[in-house]
């Protein structure tokens, strides 16, 4: 595979993100929700495939939780349709939907033991008690809580509660599992571990997952596709790589990790390559884009910190952009270091480098004069 070629071409999402002609497992069609005239969800379209682990990502108040609650049936849409497995479930009450949810605060029933919490969903279905017992036992084994069945929720740790909530939501074999900030309440170490457990569980059971989160890292590691949400609308839908490497606009670029954005003016466009100037030709930026721009257009040219190399000597390469500056700030994180470099125009550029070698001699130190360089195809052109 020609890696270079792939990198050169800005990637367009190949998976459908709204086209209604493709029969998807879950179809959200022109869904809106208004609260007293405020549009929490504004004409949203989304198709999700069976067995997918899909993430909806956005800041607080972007409407992601409202969307999730509408899927669960806990909130009634103002307009639009939700179709699950070929059935229009828009008007179904929550208790009839083959959808279960894991709540952010877990919402475990405090007066019931772990077993009873997990069994609750099955008991509402008039399933014989012997079968319930069997399925609860199996589910508790699956989430490694077999010894905790008789405990009440207040006697559990955060991670244990999370697993009880997961078991309770999975026991009815839902067609769709909704997870509201599933890892937010866990500490960092536990979060990483749980993340992988969640992915393994999803692969094992084949249940379609929709995760709602404000944490871009959580979304990227968990999901096969991500929808970035802002003010009740999807800004971009795509795989984690697409969204990270080819963000559609400034909001997405900024939301996912750190990024340096140069406000530049287009001075030339040749096919897919544009040349732009930043701060009156102090810096000439080159990047690729599918979009057509005109000379004089204002664009943002963005580069991720890890795509930038830092060196004391002037790099020799025709295909790179070079800028000069002095090290303003430096942070050592063990596995990587972050430099904040002040360019000649006074702009701070963030650079991160992997510490491949165990070198006590820091090559670059505070106030060193350095050259920053990156390849043309590392730059992203942001039109808005």
């Amino acid at each position, binding site marked *: 595979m020609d890696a270079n070629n792939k990198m050169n071409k800005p990637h367009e999402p190949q998976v459908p993100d709204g086209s209604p002609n493709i029969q998807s497992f879950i179809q959200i069609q022109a869904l809106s929700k208004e609260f007293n005239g405020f549009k929490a969800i504004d004409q949203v379209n989304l198709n999700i495939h069976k067995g997918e682990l899909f993430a909806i990502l956005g800041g607080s108040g972007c409407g992601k939780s409202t969307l999730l*609650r509408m899927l*669960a*049936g*806990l909130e009634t849409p103002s307009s639009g349709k939700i179709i699950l497995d070929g059935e229009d479930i828009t008007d179904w*009450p*929550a*208790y*009839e939907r083959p*959808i*279960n*949810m894991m*709540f952010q*605060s877990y*919402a*475990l*029933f*405090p*007066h019931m033991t772990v077993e009873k919490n997990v069994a*609750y*969903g099955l008991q*509402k*279905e008039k399933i014989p008690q012997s079968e319930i017992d069997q399925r609860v036992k199996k589910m508790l084994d699956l989430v490694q809580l077999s010894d905790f069945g008789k*405990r*009440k929720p207040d*006697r559990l740790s955060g991670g244990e509660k999370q697993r009880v909530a997961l078991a*309770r*939501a999975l026991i*009815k074999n839902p067609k769709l599992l909704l997870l509201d900030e599933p890892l937010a309440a866990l500490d960092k170490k536990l979060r990483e571990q749980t993340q992988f457990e969640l992915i393994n569980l999803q692969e094992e059971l084949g249940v379609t997952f929709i995760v709602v989160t404000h944490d871009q890292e959580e979304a990227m590691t968990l999901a096969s596709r991500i929808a970035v949400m802002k003010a009740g609308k999807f800004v971009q839908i795509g795989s984690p790589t697409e969204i990270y490497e080819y963000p559609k606009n400034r909001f997405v670029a900024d939301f996912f990790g750190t990024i340096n954005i140069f406000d530049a003016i287009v001075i030339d466009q040749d096919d897919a390559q544009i040349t732009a100037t930043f701060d009156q030709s102090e810096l000439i930026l080159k990047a690729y884009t599918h979009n057509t721009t005109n000379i004089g257009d204002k664009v943002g040219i963005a580069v991720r910190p890890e795509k930038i190399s830092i060196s004391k000597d002037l790099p020799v390469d025709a295909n790179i952009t070079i800028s000069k500056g002095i090290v303003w700030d430096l942070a050592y994180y063990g596995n990587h270091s972050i430099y904040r470099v002040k360019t000649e125009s006074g702009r701070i550029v963030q650079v991160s480098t992997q510490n491949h070698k165990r070198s006590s001699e820091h090559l670059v130190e505070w106030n060193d004069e350095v050259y920053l360089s990156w390849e043309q195809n590392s730059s992203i052109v942001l039109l808005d």
Partner: protein
Amino acid sequence: MANPRQALGDLLWRRIVIVLPYLWLVLFFLVPFAIVFKISFSDPIVAQPPFTPLFDQSQNFLNWFQGSLNNYLFLLEDNLYWVSYLRSIKVAFISTIFCLLLGYPMAYYIAQSPPTKRNVLLMLIILPFWTSFLLRVYAWMGILSTNGIINSMFLWTGIIDEPIQMLYTNFAVYLGIVYTYLPFMILPLYANLERLDLNLHDAAADLGGKPLQVFRDITLPVSLPGIIAGSLLVFIPAMGEFVIPALLGGLDSLMIGRTLYDEFFVNRDWPLASAVATILLLILVLPMVFFQRTQAKSVEENS
């Protein structure tokens, strides 16, 4: 706490804070009860005080103790007391049920209201306490009497031809007790329901619980401590209630409070009255002790 003197001061202060409520209980609950308990073993005499001393030091020392169980035995013999006790339990129980049925939806509604509205509603619940309790009971007499507001209105609109007897009936007693003690049910219930996590309802609905099932499976059991607290706060004072049955009730609505009053102030039989009071306290305290025991046990089982 580097300064040892300060540490000592803190310790002392903590001791005082802990001791104060105990001191209060001993002085104003335990000591009076001990006195009543002591009197209940004496015999009545026409004197000041109107009961025989429990210890007579003029007797030889084997006969010092002059007490007897006569009063308690008498309570068993005369069924007036049994009837009063049972009636009181019945009235208190039924009133508690009505308070719960009325108070629960009210407390729930207040707890689910937006904060500003919530404070207004709570104010309205507490507002009657700003008027004297006795005054409010008298007001009810005015409302319920044969030429009171309700009867006048019904007569005027022609719904009835002659006034309905409402005052001096059991109905009036229940109405008075439920009216008076409703806030005592609402407030602890509100305190409990206000903390209710609505996510629990969503979770139960999401797992297939229909609205009524969600109420039965989740809301009710989770609010049980509030229900128990409110019910005790209504049941206990309603059990010993004296003023309401005396003013609003008829001749047949004899409750233990009235019997107690009559023994003390009409018959001036303090020892017998003391025995009545002691039994009343036992009736109230024993179930609570039992309840606390089982509660403590279930907490232990969980840990």
